[in-house]
């Protein structure tokens, strides 16, 4: 399994041993500096310029940001993105956790197949899911109406125009996102549940804790780090929504911009119109928004944890 480097000189051998870790990590450092670090700094500068394609630049100060604040389209994009992020995460995570809790029970038959079934939509890229759902949402004949109409005849008529009616575009997006991501998040919850120390359950049972108390005292603190991770990644992912509405709505932002998102707005202004300065300002707005919300979530879950531990301490002893 080894290839002795012939009668190697001791000096060379020493040198390569010392240099190796740096050499191995160098590709990351080089690509990061050129394609990560430089563009981040550059975008800060670029956001203060009006540009037309990659060539012509004019310094405009903060007017890109001022434009964004006053542009009704940008406001629509931000609003839509926030609404989507809220509802998709709001439904995704409890559903994913519920499925994971059930699937982690040893007495469930066919767990492997069930897990595979729930996860499978995630293998399709968002773009492909969008094309599929664009057709599933067709009025009259689409599968969604065919399935939901018999269940809710008054609420959902057979000719419900999910993608033509501005007020239905968001529910349509959230539903598609549930289909796509619940199983994905479930995998994380399942892994977390399996990592919880089983002895803790036994101890809680000995202490006379029922299933609900076991859940609160053992499961919740046990899966908390992963839950926070899932919450934050799901939120960040929702903020980057683009392909799903764009392709589902036939390469557009939909009726009355009902499917316009921040990233779609960025693409249209930065790369269709060609204003890279404005695109950078949008990028920074998005990054700061994501940062603020992630930090807020960390704060929120951090305080929650302290309460939980206090409650657990009270109960266990």
């Amino acid at each position, binding site marked *: *399994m080894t290839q002795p480097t012939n009668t190697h000189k001791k000096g060379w051998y020493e040198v390569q041993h010392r240099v190796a870790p740096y050499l191995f990590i160098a590709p*990351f450092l080089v690509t990061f500096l050129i394609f990560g670090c430089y563009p981040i700094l550059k975008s800060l500068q670029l956001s203060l310029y009006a540009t037309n394609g990659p060539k012509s630049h004019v310094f405009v100060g903060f007017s890109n940001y001022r434009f964004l604040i006053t542009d009704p389209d940008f406001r629509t994009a931000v609003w839509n993105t926030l609404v989507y992020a809220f509802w998709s995460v709001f439904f995704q995570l409890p559903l994913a956790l519920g499925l994971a809790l059930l699937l982690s029970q040893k007495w469930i038959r066919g767990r492997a197949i069930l897990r595979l079934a729930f996860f499978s939509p995630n293998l399709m890229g968002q773009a492909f899911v969008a094309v599929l759902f664009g057709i599933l949402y067709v009025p009259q004949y689409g599968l969604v109406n065919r399935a939901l109409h018999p269940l809710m005849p008054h609420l959902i008529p057979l000719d419900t125009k999910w993608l033509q009616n501005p007020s239905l575009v968001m529910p349509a997006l959230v539903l598609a996102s549930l289909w796509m991501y619940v199983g994905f998040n479930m995998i994380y919850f399942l*892994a977390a549940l399996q990592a919880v120390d089983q002895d803790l359950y036994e101890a809680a049972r000995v202490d006379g804790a029922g299933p609900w108390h076991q859940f609160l005292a053992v499961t919740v603190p046990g899966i908390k780090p992963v839950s926070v991770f899932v919450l934050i990644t799901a939120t960040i992912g929702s903020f*980057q929504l683009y392909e799903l509405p764009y392709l589902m709505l036939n390469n557009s932002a939909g009726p009355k911009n009902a499917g316009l998102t921040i990233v779609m707005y960025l693409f249209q202004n930065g790369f269709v119109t060609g204003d890279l300065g404005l695109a950078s300002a949008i990028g920074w707005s998005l990054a700061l928004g994501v940062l603020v919300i992630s930090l807020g979530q960390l704060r929120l879950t951090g305080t929650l944890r302290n309460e939980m531990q206090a409650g657990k301490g009270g109960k266990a002893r």
Partner: protein
Amino acid sequence: MNRDQKLSPGRIAAHILLFAMAVVVLTPLVWLVAATTKGKNDQFHYTFFAPTITAQNFLDLFKKTEVLQRNIWNSTFLASITVLVQLFFSSLAGFSLAKYEFKGKKPITILMLATLMIPGQLTMAPLFELLHRLGLVDTYLGLIIPGAVSVFGIFLFRQSISQVPDELLQAARMDGCSEFGIYWNVVMPVSRPMTGAFCLISFMGTWNSFLWPQIILHNRELFTLPIALSQMVGVYSQEYGMLMAGTLIAVLPVFILFLVLQKEFVAGLTAGAVKG
């Protein structure tokens, strides 16, 4: 809950609920397959499969969109190269972080973590400008080079390689193996499961990616499958069977790879999250 009861009503209900939900989740996929087999007139006549099955949708697909074969080849080529490049550089860097002590290791690790939190959209405009200056717009290199090293992959490999026993590396060193030789002949062969997982994750990422290829690729000859499909949606929005045939072709390779690498994939996906 009584643990000795084999089939309590609650347990039966749980099974019914889970299997019903699985059916709901799988229905769109079954519908997708069914839609590709139906002729135009049958498309909405039958909700799922029609009595007569036709290959017309696939024939139309290749006749009307003469470039599609090209797009399939493009996607395959691009994804394979990207996977190989990312696999090599990410595992190498992961090895470095897992098995060596060196100056600057900590700041580099923190730097990597920080990059995971920056949304890619932030750098798209300046990156496009940079690639334009380098002459890489409208080339696959413009897609491959900026993402040549996957930070996610580095962490994945750092985690799995740190479990390789140090004695194994020492023994190789005694044999006069160079550090790169250790990586190539010792570390990578024992990291097979993680390699499989990473290849699939990386392949999916490239195969499904849309926004950045949409920005970088302008020449139709270079379009990847998602981009080609989005063009088809614009032109043939009423040709449901054909669109679904294109979608099926586009998602099938990932499904097949997944079925082969399922176990490793799930382990790889959750490795960082559970331990961290």
